[in-house]
């Protein structure tokens, strides 16, 4: 279960990988885990994300006890999951629940890259689908933050089929006129990109986030040369027409609040 009392990791100092600015934990929290020197957006644990976006005390987690099976009977897979669970306090790579943003209700899903690369297996697919269906059932807008390396290979064909499942839920939201907003964070690739992540009514991205289908190394392997800097960045995707708006983390809550305000009656 996600622990919102301790949303941030206990790290005394953090060094920016891009400009080498060193920030204390207090400074990191104050700056929304964004480098004050160059604006680099650090990855954010799910709890910190919820802390940042949801009104205080408004988040109620759902489906927190779903645990994956091991359909391929892969050696060590259960251990890998329990290890990731201990490290993250999460049952799998997404946290879902209901929340309020500036007083407006919504269903909120936050993926966690820290949990096995944010990969989507049966549990992630099911929880995201249930979150969307809950939005449909209770007439609440659905907001999902993505962060994923793609489908979880350890679950074989079941992970592939979660793409169809989440896309089907997105189709249902379309049909019922329920707002569905996606926030693409670093990185969002593979089967998550090729399913619900690209199906939002509005697609927001954080600055500098890597967003794509095939990973950069796979593409470089295909063409046998290096990709230009910034290929598949949020800025690239906005230029190519696949992202509506790049929003710095500091402005995210305001932007989401605006979207909720303009898409709900009251």
């Amino acid at each position: 279960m996600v622990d919102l009392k301790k949303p941030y990791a206990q790290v005394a100092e953090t060094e920016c990988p891009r400009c080498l600015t060193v920030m204390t934990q207090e400074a990191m929290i104050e700056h929304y885990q964004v480098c004050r020197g160059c604006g680099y957006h650090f990855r954010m644990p799910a709890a910190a994300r919820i802390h940042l976006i949801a009104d205080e005390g408004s988040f109620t987690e759902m489906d927190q006890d779903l645990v994956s099976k091991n359909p391929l009977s892969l050696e060590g897979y259960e251990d890998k999951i329990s290890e990731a669970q201990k490290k993250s306090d999460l049952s799998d790579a997404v946290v879902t629940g209901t929340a309020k943003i500036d007083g407006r209700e919504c269903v909120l899903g936050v993926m966690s890259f820290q949990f096995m690369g944010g990969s989507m297996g049966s549990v992630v697919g099911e929880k995201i689908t249930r979150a969307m269906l809950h939005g449909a059932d209770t007439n609440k807008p659905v907001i999902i933050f993505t962060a994923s390396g793609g489908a979880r290979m350890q679950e074989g064909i079941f992970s592939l089929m979660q793409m169809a499942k989440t896309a089907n839920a997105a189709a249902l939201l379309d049909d019922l006129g329920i707002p569905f907003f996606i926030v693409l964070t670093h990185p969002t690739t593979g089967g998550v990109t090729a399913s619900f992540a690209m199906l939002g009514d509005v697609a927001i991205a954080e600055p500098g986030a890597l967003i794509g289908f095939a990973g950069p190394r796979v593409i470089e392997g295909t063409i046998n040369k290096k990709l230009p800097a910034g290929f598949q960045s949020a800025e690239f995707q906005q230029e190519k027409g696949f992202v509506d708006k790049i929003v710095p983390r500091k402005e995210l809550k305001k932007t989401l609040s605006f979207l909720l305000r303009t898409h709900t009656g009251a």
Partner: protein
Amino acid sequence: MDELKNKLEELKDLAGKNNLDINKSLSEIEAMLNVGKNSPTWEKVQLARRLDRPGALEFINLICDEFIELHGDRYFKDDPALIGGIGTIDGQAITFIGNQKGSNLKENLYRNYGMGGPEGYRKALRLAKQAEKFHRPIVTLIDTSGAYPGPEAEARGIGEAIAQNLKHFSLLKVPIICFVIGEGGSGGALGIGVGDKLYMLENSIYSVISPEGFASILLRDSNKAKEAADIMKMTAKDLFEFGIIHGIIPEAPGGVQNDPAYTANMIKELILSNIAVLKKKKPESLIRYRSRKIREIGQFTENAGKEQDLFGLFSRLFS
């Protein structure tokens, strides 16, 4: 198999006596016999990838009385890696969509080895919507190692194109019957793989990643593809046991390339029998059944035992 080996020995003997040079042919046959000696799954992987395995167009020509191919996504170009058009079986019009690899090097290059770009998937969606408009059933024939992982495909939104197909195919108001005829490679296969019925040919495979990819990422050794294939549960039998596919279509001994008509005929029968049943359903119940089938796929436990009545919720949302 043993009988074949004996015959081979006899043949060698005979060739030796008559001074015939058949070594090249012999070593080819021997290689074929050794294929998959240790791994029945790897044998299927190799059969599924054979250059002379019939592709979507070959099957369409065997199945249909008439067929015209339709080209282009109407936005950017025509993608030869993904084909589609209108065919007739016993006078009944059906929209066909399929991955096309090509059966020789020249065709492979022209068709990008069946690795579709965004234009291919957008063409597929255009033809599917066209089918819906004219109440035509849709048949998809899946045979790709995956969508094209290249920079142009990325720049034009291959992820978005596949995502749109998954979304729209799940709500199309006409019957959709899918067949994995060769390789079912990841999102590139699923991009034309959402439907009411899913069948696999006996020696076809369907997986989230190639055995080579699985080996290099999870087994940390790209040479362990054979081993990976055994672990991945990617054969028709595996997927049937998982409840993901509806049936397995037999192939001629040694693979479908030895008698494509035999398998094509069975595909044709399945298309006709399924359409006869599915077209009697109201569009709403067709969509509900299709969505429910997709919703059911997943393997997890839920400890608290307070499972919501999700199917109840689901039916309500769809009514």
